[in-house]
């Protein structure tokens, strides 16, 4: 039987310490480790006897040698619950730079961060030595750039 409680605590601690997410925000979710490196959040488990192509929930974290790496999709879901490690990019040209793969200068502690644009969380980034790079998946970046053009 997987140890859901310890995993839940580990995940909640990560999001609380790095992103300031209150633990109770995650209370309704079950966390499941899949494939040794991936952690998924789900609010339901598949009924027995049914083979799935895609399990319920979303991938939220990947275990890396230096710790957890959060996914864009889960940071977007956490949205307004993210209180810290936010890279506030309200200028559309600056956001475009990030999405085009160019680092921007931003003062924030080294580590993973959430890209925020005019209050919306758009995904994951990484900060190192005062520079921030977006880690949003390529396809999602393209889609997002397509959304920005009419707005810029």
């Amino acid at each position, binding site marked *: 039987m997987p140890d859901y409680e310890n995993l839940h605590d580990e995940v909640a601690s990560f999001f609380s310490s790095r992103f300031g997410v209150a633990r109770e925000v995650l209370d309704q979710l079950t966390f499941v480790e899949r494939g040794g490196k991936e952690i998924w959040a789900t609010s339901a488990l*598949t*009924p027995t006897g049914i083979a799935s192509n895609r399990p319920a929930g979303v991938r939220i974290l990947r275990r890396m040698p230096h710790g957890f790496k959060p996914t864009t999709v889960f940071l*977007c879901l956490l949205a307004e619950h993210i209180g810290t490690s936010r890279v506030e990019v309200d200028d559309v040209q600056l956001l475009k730079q990030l999405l085009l793969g160019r680092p921007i200068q931003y003062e924030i502690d080294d580590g993973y961060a959430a890209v925020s644009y005019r209050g919306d969380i758009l995904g994951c980034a990484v900060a190192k030595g005062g520079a921030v790079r977006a880690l949003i998946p390529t396809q999602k970046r393209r889609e997002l750039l397509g959304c920005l053009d009419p707005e810029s």
Partner: protein
Amino acid sequence: MIGERGLARYRTIIPRWREFVDACTRPLPVTIRVNTLRASPRDVRDRLTRKGFSLIPIAWSEDLFRVETPRVSKTIEHWLGMFYIQEAVQTLPVRVLSPQPGETILDMAAAPGGKCTHIASCMRNRGALIANEPVGKRQPSLMANINRLGVLNTTVTSYRGESFPMHARFDRVLLDAPCSAEGTLRKESTLRDGATRSAIARLSRLQQRLILRAYDLLKPGGTLVYSTCTFAPEENEGTVSHLLSKRDALLDQITLPFPAERGIIAWNDEEYAPEVARCARIYPHQIDSGGGFIARLRKPAR
């Protein structure tokens, strides 16, 4: 033009034929369904209005808006999964299904995910939803929409519906069946001549197999909604009559929030089970959307 050989065969069963024909030749309005897992209808309306979109509420549904401005799919709100672009008529089967949080529900033919994500939203992401899609190339869009809309309780499977495993039983099953899709003719003009008789016959045989399995997968007291987006009685009342002749299913009277037509009990040389009058037929000129058919059936509680 509506071809005489095709849709004109429904002239005797579709009321106000001229209005129907006129509606079918008008462009389909763009409607969005707010994904209440991610945002409230007010939030979405306010945000899109601020960006210059013109949103008109749909009177019978608080989470539906008609959008009069193009390119609503190219917005951050869409990217963030705050809404789903969906024909108004396509939201009706889930309203009739009435999913509840905590239930176990099967969407038997789920891609691209409009109804499945609507069900998850009604369930408030609680309970278990199985989104089954047997066609492999339709699965990526289903999975992308599940991800985009923040659905956390949905497992994707790829069984042929008629042989979906009987290991689990469901509180509710939605069978939005593969059909000749005549009701989508406003966006697919090639359908204005109607479907061929051979296609309708082939689909009808498939639908009969699917509806039997969908019903068998219900728990006692469970609810099955059978829907199509076609006008063909063979695929609608004919399929429901087939189920009623083979199983002890109970057919509910459907009440929709606008005037709709009842199911027909006879057409051409066919007679259907008299209960099928409790089903609903929806035509484009009645709600300025596409067309469709909905039946709600229950398995008796033991």
